[in-house]
C-alpha cells in the first residue's frame, strides 16, 4: 500500500465514524453524554480533515479534504466496514467506539513516531484524543456490561454482532495488541469474548468493497455539496 492509501484509509475510517457518531447529537440519554459524543465526533472529524488534507498532498493531484470527502463514490472510499454499519443503540455505539479507539490508539502511537513529520504531528495530537475516547468507551462498556440485565444483554449483542468486523479493523499483525487492550475491558464488563476464530470475517473496505449501508450515508453526506458543483461554502 502506498502512503496515500494508508493515510486515506485512516482518514476515511475516522470521517465515517464521525458522521455516524454525530447522528447522536440531541439524541443521547442525557446532556452530559450528548456533549461527550459530540466531542468525540468532533475530534474524529478533526483527525479526518487533517488526514484527508495530508492524503491530498501525498497524492499530488490537487484534491483537498472536501474533494476527497464529497466527490468520491462509495467504491472509492477506503474505510473499514465497522465504522459504516448503522448507528444502532447506545451499546452498539459504545462497543464500536471501544473497538475502534483501541485500534486507533495503536496506529496513532506508531505513526506519531514515523518519518512523515506532518503525519507524525497529526498522530501525536490524535493519540491523546484517542486515549480519552478509549477510556470513555471502556468506562461505558463496563457500566453497561455490569449494569442491569437489559444493558448486559444489549452490550453482549453489540459485542457479538460487531466482533466479526474487528478482524478487518486490526489485521493479522495488529490483532494481539488490540486484544490485549480490549479483552480486559470485556472481562471487567462481565461480557463474553466471542469466538476468537470465526468463519465470518467481513472485509474489503480497504479495496472499496463496502456494505450496502455506506451508499446511504454518502448520499446524505454528499447531496448538498454535489448539488452545487464548484461552489465555495
Amino acid at each position, binding site marked *: 500500500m502506498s502512503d496515500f492509501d494508508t493515510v486515506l484509509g485512516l482518514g476515511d475510517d475516522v*470521517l465515517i465514524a464521525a*458522521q455516524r457518531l*454525530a*447522528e447522536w*447529537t*440531541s*439524541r*443521547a*440519554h*442525557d*446532556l*452530559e*453524554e*450528548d*456533549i461527550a459524543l*459530540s*466531542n468525540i*465526533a*468532533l475530534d474524529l*472529524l*478533526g483527525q*479526518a*480533515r487533517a488526514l*484527508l488534507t495530508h492524503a491530498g498532498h501525498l497524492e499530488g493531484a490537487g484534491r483537498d*479534504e*472536501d474533494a476527497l*470527502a*464529497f466527490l468520491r463514490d462509495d467504491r472509492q472510499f477506503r474505510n473499514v466496514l465497522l465504522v459504516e454499519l448503522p448507528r444502532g*443503540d*447506545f451499546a452498539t455505539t459504545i462497543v464500536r467506539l471501544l473497538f475502534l479507539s483501541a485500534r486507533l490508539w495503536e496506529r496513532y502511537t506508531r505513526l506519531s513516531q514515523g518519518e512523515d513529520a506532518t503525519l507524525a504531528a497529526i498522530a501525536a495530537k490524535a493519540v491523546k484524543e484517542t486515549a480519552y475516547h478509549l477510556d470513555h468507551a471502556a468506562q461505558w462498556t*463496563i*457500566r*453497561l456490561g*455490569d*449494569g*442491569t440485565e*437489559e*444493558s448486559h444483554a*444489549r452490550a453482549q449483542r453489540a459485542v457479538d454482532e460487531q466482533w466479526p468486523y474487528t478482524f478487518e479493523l486490526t489485521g493479522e499483525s495488529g490483532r494481539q495488541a488490540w486484544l490485549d487492550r480490549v479483552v480486559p475491558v470485556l472481562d471487567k464488563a462481565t461480557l463474553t469474548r466471542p469466538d476468537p476464530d470465526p468463519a465470518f470475517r467481513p472485509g474489503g473496505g480497504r479495496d472499496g468493497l463496502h456494505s450496502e449501508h455506506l451508499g446511504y450515508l454518502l448520499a*446524505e*453526506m454528499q*447531496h*448538498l*455539496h454535489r448539488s*452545487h458543483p*464548484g*461552489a*465555495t*461554502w
Partner: protein
Amino acid sequence: DAEESEFEAIIAADKKIEPRDAMPEAYRKTLIRQMAQHAHSEIIGMQPEGNWISRAPSLSRKAILLAKVQDEAGHGLYLYAAAETLGVDRDELYEQLLNGRQKYSSIFNYPTLTWADVGAIGWLVDGAAIVNQVPLCRCSYGPYARAMIRVCKEESFHQRQGFQSLYVLARGTAAQREMAQDAVNRWWYPSLAMFGPPDADSTHSQQSMEWKIKRYSNDELRQRFVDMTVQQAGVLGLELPDPELRWNAERGHYDYTQPDYDELMRVVKGDGPCNRQRMANRTAAVRDGEWVRKAAAAYARKQQEVAA
C-alpha cells in the same frame, strides 16, 4: 419583615442575590420559570440546526456546526445547573418540558429548510438571543447572571459564524445567494417575535423589571435588534424582507413592521410547523435512553456496595 427588606436592599444596591439569600417565593418562581425556559430552548434548539450536521456542504462547516450544537447542550447544562441552585432538579424541569407545562423559545418550531437556514439562525436568531441576553448578565440573581456571561460569550461567537457563513453564500453562486436571501426572508419576522409580545400585552414584565431580572422592555430590545441588524444586512448585501424598514431621524431608530403576533401566539400554544416534531424527538430521546440511565444507576449502586 427583615428578610424582605434585606432582599429589597440588595436589589436596590444593584448587588446579586445568591442561593443562600432569602428571597420572595414569587421571585424564585419567576426565575425558575425563566431559566428553565431558557435551558429548554437551548436543548430544543439543538434540533433545527442539528438537522444539517450530516449534510453540511464542507467538512469545516460540519465541524463548526457540530461544535455549535454541542455548545447549545453546554448552555443547557449551565442553565439547568443555575436553576438547580433554586432547589428544583433537572429531572423535574425535563418533566415539565415534556408535559408541556414549561415552554421553550417558539423560534425553534420553524423548520430549517436549506443549508442557509443554519447561517440565518446564527446571524438572526443568535443575534436576537444576544440582545435579549446581554442585559441578563447583570440580572439580580447571581448564578443566572454568571451563567449568562458564559453563554453570551459563546453566542456572540456563533453569531459571527452565522454571519460569516451567510456572507460566503451571499457572494457565492446565484443559487447560493438565492438560498441565503430566502433564509433571511423566512427567519426575519420569527426573529423579531423572539422578543415577545409588544410591551402593551406583555405580562410578567413590570415585576421582572422591578426585580432587576429584566432590564429593558420587549419593544426596547426589539428596536435595538432591528437597528443593529439593518447595518449588518448592508454588509452582507442581503435584504431584510420589510418594505417599511427605514431610518427615522426623529426617533434615532429604524422604523419597521411588527411581526405577526397572532402567529406567535399560535406557535406558543403548540401549533407551529414543528412543535409536535420537536417534542416527539425529545420524548423519544428520553424514552430510548431510559435503559442507559438505569444501567448507569445500577452500576453506581454496585460500586458503592463494593466500597461499603
